[in-house]
């Protein structure tokens, strides 16, 4: 229970400031990735979550089917890398994560919590023009 409480607090805190992304956020993750690396201390949470949950398919480099698929779909009209995009909306991101698309499957809340998804959405829309 203590753990859940901490998580909720972090989630709430994040929600309040999500529009203006804090440069430094204390990442006190305790649920989904207790056992894994965070990219480096002090990175924004959305970046951390994106790295852990999305980049193995949508990242840079070889063997990234998500990036390949978007390259094939848009043929360079928009960047194939999700985190270079400036046209994604938070609603759309959530739609894909929770419903899947093509061979991208659905992600459950035990994999990517709503709070994590908010953070990812915030990260991927950080450079959007207002």
């Amino acid at each position: 229970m203590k753990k859940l409480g901490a998580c909720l607090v972090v989630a709430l805190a994040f929600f309040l400031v999500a529009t203006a992304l804090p440069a430094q956020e204390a990442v006190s993750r305790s649920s989904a990735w207790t056992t894994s690396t965070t990219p480096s201390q002090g990175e924004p949470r959305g970046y951390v979550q994106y790295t852990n949950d999305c980049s193995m398919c949508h990242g840079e480099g070889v063997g990234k089917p998500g990036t390949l698929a978007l390259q094939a779909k848009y043929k360079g009209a928009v960047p194939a890398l999700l985190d270079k995009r400036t046209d994604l909306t938070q609603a759309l991101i959530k739609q894909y994560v929770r419903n899947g698309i093509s061979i991208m499957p659905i992600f459950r809340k035990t994999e990517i919590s709503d709070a994590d998804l908010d953070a990812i959405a915030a990260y991927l829309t950080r450079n959007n023009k207002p």
Partner: protein
Amino acid sequence: MRVPPGVSASDFAEAIKQFQEAVGKEWVFTSAEDVALYRDAYSPLMGEPNELVASAAVAPDGVEQVQKVVKIANRYKIPIYPVSTGKNLGYGGSAPVLSGSVVLDLKRMNRILEVNERNAYALVEPGVSYFDLYRYIQEKGLKLWVDVPDPGWGSPIGNSLDRGGGYLMPQYRNHFDSHCGMEVVLANGEVMRTGMGALPAAQTWQEYKSGFGPWIDGMFSQSNFGVVTKMGFWLMPEPDAYLSGTVIVPRHDDLIPLVNTLNYLENTRVTNGMPDLASPLLGIPMLSEFAARFDQGATPFDRPQDAELTALIAKAGGNMSPELDDYAQKKGIGYWSCKLSFYGATKANAANWAYAKEKFSAIPGVKFEEGDVYKLPLTAEQREKVHKPQFGIPSLAMFSIGARSAMNPEPSTGHMWFSPIIPRTGEAIFEANRVFAQAAKELGLPFLNFNLPSTYWERAFIFIFAFPVVKDIETNKKNVASFRKLIQVAADHGWGEYRTAPVFQDAIMNTYSFNNHALLHFHETVKDAIDPNGILSAGRYGIWPKHVREAKS
């Protein structure tokens, strides 16, 4: 809200309340929107009324919580369906076999309890993924490799219980075989440890598999006899070096001695990585280069763009033809090839490869290509270049097979794997191709001209191929029907599937029918004894609890 079969709405509401007390309100999912996240993203029944879906999901965060959930389920006779990471796409994902079951989602139990470098093992919970374990090991700088399956987001526990495979040395790439020690919550809610773990002060739970008395771990693989909450795995020490080399043979019939020699070399541990069969002539790529070809913007099918060859292949229709043999000889293209991998000391790798060449030299016209030599660990640059699972690095690259790409502009929405086990002989490969090509013709399926098996297991082949899942219900229906026919065709030839998606589990278990289904009846006797209320994973791998069997008959 959907209610599990045979459970009253009021009982279910009561159970949900108790689940909430057990795991916390936020970890019981009942809204249609949340429960939909547990659908099988690759379900061939997607959108049909008989799609297999959950009524709710419960996500405990520890073994005590699992025990509580199981006890509540017993009280109200609620079918529950454990998933670990729920990412075995193509084999069922996170959806239950019995619609209306409550999914027991173990993803939150993602603790890495121990990684021992000196004795090379790990003890983990079911929610730990290959990515998690890999990152943990990297972060600690341990000289250990994890044998990963193609999709790195899978769970070592889930994959091994489903008896999946990988790429490293034989004893590691057979994932169930590489486990050592289990903790299981039984259907009555009791927690049990197997092997040396049953000894309260055990020092060797992850070092000796079978303990004392009957060794029952296998009962919890591909089954519904318990919820595995911890499991140990033997890891591979990082080798000194890696070497690969490719053997190329010129004629169709050379596949037979190629496989025989390969078996000798693999069974004596001369080559100790996953052998990789291919056909330069027919354009069948190596498994280890399959995904990389998408990155190169090419199709995975790699053969000379030559009209004469295309015509000859079409004419041969998957069979032996002297013209194809002649063409291969004339153009100097190998008919078959096999890439061998060697993990070990630099000099031993070289000596093993030299010996392998000597053995293959008995095949007239054989050629050899020197492959990669890496002193390990890999440099950052090498890591980008290699087929990652062969170096214990998890990846998702294999999903390129179905994703949109240059050669696949209209991607599928998923796939289901047809995966029969065939003998490890060249003759069996030829026969399987003949049989399945004939069946495909009869079923009106588009098929590759020839299929080569995978070599995840050291003593048998898997003749695996993917059926696409698409958005169109009619096409899916037809594919499901064809899949069922192929199960029977395979069984008629003595080939059984090693694993399958829930939709086909009954059909496949039915083919394992020796002596009037003695094995299934045995499972049912055990099931009724240890899970009298039939709450765990009803129907998984064809094993149904008594009340469902009686209702069916």
